[in-house]
């Protein structure tokens, strides 16, 4: 449950009014506010934050907490220049085919960040206009930043040829 300190913060209160029940957890740790959002409502929350002077989506990324389930934590670094305020949104997604709503329609800057997460973690974004790999080659197998993806080793065996 939300601590009193997190509940007292302006963003949390604004979100409680505009998107009741979307914030499922939160913490204020080392001066940084993290709010855990219901994964189904991320686009709605982002839309509200954009209207609440959060002009920028600084970055979208992901953390793999394998072997825990749900294994992927989607991270959205939101930034308001007008208020000089930052908040980090976190959504948990998991399952065989992890997927979440794209926030590209809200912040166009999410375009490449979501493609990167798809490429390196294999999280699929619904309603993204171009859900293709961005850093790895198009025919690459697997998603390198997953924790069960090896760091060493060759994809092909050269010795047999």
């Amino acid at each position, binding site marked *: 449950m939300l601590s009193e300190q997190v509940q007292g913060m302006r963003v949390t209160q604004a979100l409680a009014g505009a998107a009741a029940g979307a914030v499922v957890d939160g913490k204020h740790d*080392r001066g940084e506010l993290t709010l855990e959002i219901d994964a189904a409502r991320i686009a709605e929350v982002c839309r509200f934050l954009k209207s609440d002077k959060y002009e920028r*989506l*600084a*970055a979208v990324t992901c953390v793999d907490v394998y072997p825990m389930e749900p294994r992927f934590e989607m991270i959205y670094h939101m930034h308001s*220049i007008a208020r000089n305020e930052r908040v980090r949104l976190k959504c948990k997604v998991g399952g065989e085919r992890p997927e979440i709503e794209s926030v590209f329609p809200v912040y*166009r800057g999410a*375009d*490449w*960040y979501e493609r990167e997460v798809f490429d*390196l973690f294999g999280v699929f974004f619904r309603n993204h206009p171009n859900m293709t790999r961005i850093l790895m080659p198009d025919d690459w197998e697997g998603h390198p930043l997953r924790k069960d993806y090896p760091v060493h080793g060759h994809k092909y065996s050269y010795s047999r040829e």
Partner: protein
Amino acid sequence: MADTAILETPSAALSRRRTMTLNMGPQHPSTHGVLRIVLDLDGEVILKAVADIGFLHTGIEKQCETKTWQQVVPLTDRVDYLSNLANNLAYVLAVERLLQIEIPPRAQYLRVMLTEISRIASHLVWLGTHALDIGAMSMFMYCFREREEILKILEMFSGQRMMTSYLRVGGVALDAPRGWEKVVGRFLDDFPGKIDMYENLLTGNPIWTLRTKGVGYMPLEDLLDWGVTGPMLRAAGLKWDIRKDEPYSGYDKFSFDVPTRTESDVFARYMVRMAELRESLKIARQALDGMPGGAFQADAPQITLPAREKMKTQMEALIYHFKIVTEGFAVPAGEAYACVESPRGELGYYVVSDGGTKPCRVHMRTPSFGNLQILGPMLENTLIADSIAALGSMDFVLGDTDR
């Protein structure tokens, strides 16, 4: 009656096909690295530009997860190889926030001074190559001549010209070398004259202004929406600089201005960066004059390596040294995001720890990646020749983009 299509000559069929697709890069000299842009052309006009990145992807973020906390610092050098100190700084700030340790003022000043000097070096590479692309050959020579002086300063401090790895979690690697004030002071004295020379060559130059004014325009709302940061935003009129708005490493103790322009074209970006050169000099000068004495590393024996002398005489120091070198230090579980104003914009490191001696996740929010997203919209309906100027004004580094 014959079918008209059969009667048509090949050239007539060609002229009906209006557009042409052209591959620019990945080895095109003005893409500054390995960036591929697929251009749809109607004559000389670009209808659509799609950036294809990833040629320089080296999996640094994955590698970080296999290194100890301190071993990640040399990797961050290689992300943005033109402003490696900013990368070092963002990373160590994030880890220090997780550790909650206090950095002594001398280390903070050394960090600020060298980061500003390396910002000048980075802007010099941008200016030289940008001018070279537009045809001002001699600028390239002048800029690299001055950059050489900066690389000598960095070598003096760290032993390395480019991949300095000078910052440590808890401070800096070494104390400032003997005689550094003289060398840095001489550079800070000489450099303002050099900026005047660059401005003499370019700012009023009719060819330069014709090639840059009104080119590559983007409205501020689009820049913000696409995730652009840094000098490009300031050239569009937004007075936002992380050094001022969210001061880190003691930047609040320095007085400097945040230069802005409103035209948001290639020329405005040029003017902003030229003004930033002077502001960086101002900061470096204040750091030089006000350099505090004292320790250059935090008083945290389990994190920073002990002094050589202590190690030979004290049992405890020897044990700490052994532990740090063999297994590294543990960082309390948690997550932190630290961002700095790199020469290209917001450079943020998002670091997650599970309490162990290796990072659980290191995400680099690199400015070039965010800035390059605007490439498609910016190049639409411009001429091919102007695209070279527009690309140069974005000042991206492909190592920073692909990581």
